[in-house]
């Protein structure tokens, strides 16, 4: 189901009417297309103090045009500010100085990226100033227009920035807005080919027969992974089509079945050289107000959305089938942060996943520097949302800074990013892909 309103306000007549009447004007987002430049225009980098030449070099290496001089009328594809040196509230004025004069020159679907440091409890003033960055970026995300986004990278000294900078500048992060992400020192290997960062990797995506799962499988395959797509036997017809479209293999697996981990391990042992990437995407909804919730609706949602992830992770960690530097990405939801009426069961599982990845991080790090993270999609246009009543759907779509629903591919891009070898410094975190949804963001 296409977004007719978005198409309308991006037509000449619709655009004029929307401006006069003051209706929201969602932009057509810039999404990744192989071969296209990483940004629509040049990059200006600022900093508290002097700009670190290493940062300029790193951004240039992505293919972006980093300018050190500027003239009137320059328009920017991205504005990057290095605020890692912020140590007092007064330092924050440097951000105002850098951004306020340039924000009006930010191009459509431009990028604002702020680098900071995570509060570490060592100094109250420093920590307060660092935490302030979060408020600046989240507020800026809500101010930016025309599909532009603002995000915050909290960087440890020796953390590898490359993969994250590429993701956040490119169209791959189209629907990630107003989010902080911590990068710590980890084993983050740069891929041989940035267009195929997952080359040579074996990935498994559960619930891959349709919707977001099928999109994830497609993006992982595009990025070079050999993908095993798993779903219920009942979904086998659609699953075979997905597998054949992306050149992957289909596996009939009910993740909630008690013997699922055992079946999965047997399969991995006989037909793969071990798993590098696991995406726990399988999920169901059985919405009812808690007062009316039937035990079977409660139990099935818990079993599929949460217990299956715990069981399969435990089995993989104690097996030989999970390779070193593997990546596990679990599907959470913004409902896991905000809650949702009629979704106590679903909300439980999606919040549970956030806890799951946070608490599993050290176990995965101990497993050959592997990582585990979650992605929390907001309102994403799928077959499921196409069945919502029109008015509810239209309102839900506008309730984010980007004033539109995301696409399954937006979730898939974030997952591929977290699955890439260069994302080794991200562990135990939950990244929201919600267009800075006004609820729970």
């Amino acid at each position: 189901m296409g977004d007719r309103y978005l198409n309308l306000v991006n037509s000449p007549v619709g655009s004029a009417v929307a401006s006069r009447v003051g209706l929201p004007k969602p932009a057509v987002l810039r999404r990744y297309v192989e071969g296209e430049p990483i940004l629509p225009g040049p990059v200006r980098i600022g900093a508290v103090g002097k700009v670190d030449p290493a940062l300029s070099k790193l951004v240039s290496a992505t293919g972006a045009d980093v300018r050190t001089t500027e003239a009137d009328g320059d328009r920017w594809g991205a504005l990057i500010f290095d605020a890692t040196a912020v140590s007092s509230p007064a330092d924050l004025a440097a951000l105002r100085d850098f951004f306020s004069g340039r924000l009006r020159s930010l191009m459509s679907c431009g990028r604002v990226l702020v680098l900071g440091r995570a509060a570490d409890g060592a100094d109250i003033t420093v920590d307060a100033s660092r935490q302030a960055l979060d408020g600046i970026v989240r507020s800026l995300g809500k101010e930016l227009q025309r599909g532009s986004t603002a995000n915050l990278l909290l960087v440890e000294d020796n953390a590898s920035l490359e993969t994250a900078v590429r993701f956040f500048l490119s169209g791959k992060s189209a629907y990630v807005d107003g989010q902080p992400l911590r990068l710590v020192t980890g084993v983050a290997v740069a891929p041989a080919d940035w267009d195929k960062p997952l080359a040579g990797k074996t990935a498994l995506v559960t619930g891959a027969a349709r919707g977001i799962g099928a999109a994830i499988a497609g993006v992982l395959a595009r990025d070079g992974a050999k993908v095993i797509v798993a779903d219920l036997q009942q979904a086998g017809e659609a699953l075979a089509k997905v597998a054949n479209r992306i050149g992957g293999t289909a596996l009939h697996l009910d993740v909630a079945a008690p013997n699922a981990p055992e079946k999965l391990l047997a399969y991995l042992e006989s037909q793969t050289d071990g798993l590098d990437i696991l995406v726990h995407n399988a999920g169901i909804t059985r919405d009812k107000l808690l007062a009316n919730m039937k035990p079977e609706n409660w139990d099935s949602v818990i079993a599929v959305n949460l217990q299956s992830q715990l069981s399969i992770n435990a089995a993989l960690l104690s097996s030989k089938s999970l390779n070193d530097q593997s990546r596990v990405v679990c599907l959470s939801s913004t409902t896991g942060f905000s809650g949702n009426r009629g979704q106590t069961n679903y909300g439980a599982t999606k919040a549970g996943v956030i806890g799951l990845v946070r608490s599993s991080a050290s176990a995965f790090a101990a497993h050959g520097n592997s990582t585990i993270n979650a992605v929390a999609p907001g309102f994403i246009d799928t077959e499921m949302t196409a069945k919502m009543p029109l008015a509810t759907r239209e309102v839900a779509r506008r309730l984010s800074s980007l004033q539109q629903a995301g696409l399954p591919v937006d979730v898939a891009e974030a997952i591929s990013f977290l699955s890439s070898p260069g994302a080794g410094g991200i562990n135990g975190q939950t990244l929201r892909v919600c267009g800075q949804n006004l609820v729970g963001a």
Partner: protein
Amino acid sequence: MLTAAIDGLVARYGLQNERVGEVASGAVLKHSRDFNLTREAVLGSTLAPTTPAYDVQQACGTGLVTVILTANKIALGQIDSAIAGGVDTTSDAPIAVSEGLREVLLDVNRAKSLGGRLKALGGLRPNQIVPTIPQNSEPRTGLSMGEHQAITTQEWGITREAQDELAAASHQNLAAAYDRGFFDDLVTPFLGLTRDQNLRGDSTVEKLSKLSPVFGTHLPGGVEGATMTAANSTPLTDGASVVLLASDEWAAEHKLPVLAHFVDAETAAVDYVHGDRRADGLLMAPVYAVPRLLARNNLKLQDFDFYEIHEAFASTVLTTLAAWEDAEFCKSYLGLDEPLGSIDRSKLNINGSSLAVGHPFAATGGRIVATLAKMIHENGGGRGLISICAAGGQGVVAILEA
């Protein structure tokens, strides 16, 4: 259906754009325009379009005989991989025109002028317009397969109770196999259908005993003596099946699990037209094929962990077993000093067979080969015997091992 089955296999083993050595399959009921059915299915599938393919047809033995043909080519080193199988539809069967109408139409086609065409059409008679519905009957005897088997059933004294027991077990075994997920990695759903439609997991001997006989009612003994019902005879259904075969090296290169090896096969035929009423029944050829196969491989009938005897009719399976247990028959007709003996019935069709699955003629062989191969693999090794009877008095049998 064949394309969907091939695509399901391709998806399961990641064979997209792979040039497989060859694809052999066939259909028993097919329209003449589908002369290249298998090749067309390959072109419509996600296999490399450079994959060669051909059609084979040996009635109900089609599926198994494609496995034999391709396995032999792999053993000879002519190809290193193949897909074998078959497809059939009874619900969407092609319908032929009558002989008279066909002759008229050919005359019209040959006529050179409008007048000539009209003259040819003038030869049309109303009775010629009635189409010829395909029938499951033997051209040389005019008897349906069921009526043939009814004679054999009576000759061998196979009881109604024994047939109903076998039929109920087939349904119960298949249902249990589905329930424990045995078919999860074997079955590709089609048009929303995820299990065999014919399956009635709640079948019991009591329920089946209530049905009226449909075959053999004209034989001596009449309706009272007839034992074959709709439940203990296999329904003709729609389906397709394919099996991936390869050399060990090819399987290793593709990191695919080897479920079982194809060992040997034998085909026999009986003269059901002129032969003995008891010994040469239409569906009794496997009775002759198996001892030849066993002798060549130095095996006894009891040297198997699994027996897959195609349930054309419950009584076909029971006759086959009875014949092997019959010392006099084995001596006179199989030339054996000792009877082949009985088998451990707990090893027979343990995940159900055609009575429950249904019998889409050419697809049955591939289904049985895949099922047996997985059973052997699950068992951690072993040996299995396949026996399939076919129209025209033929029988195809084979051994799988791991």
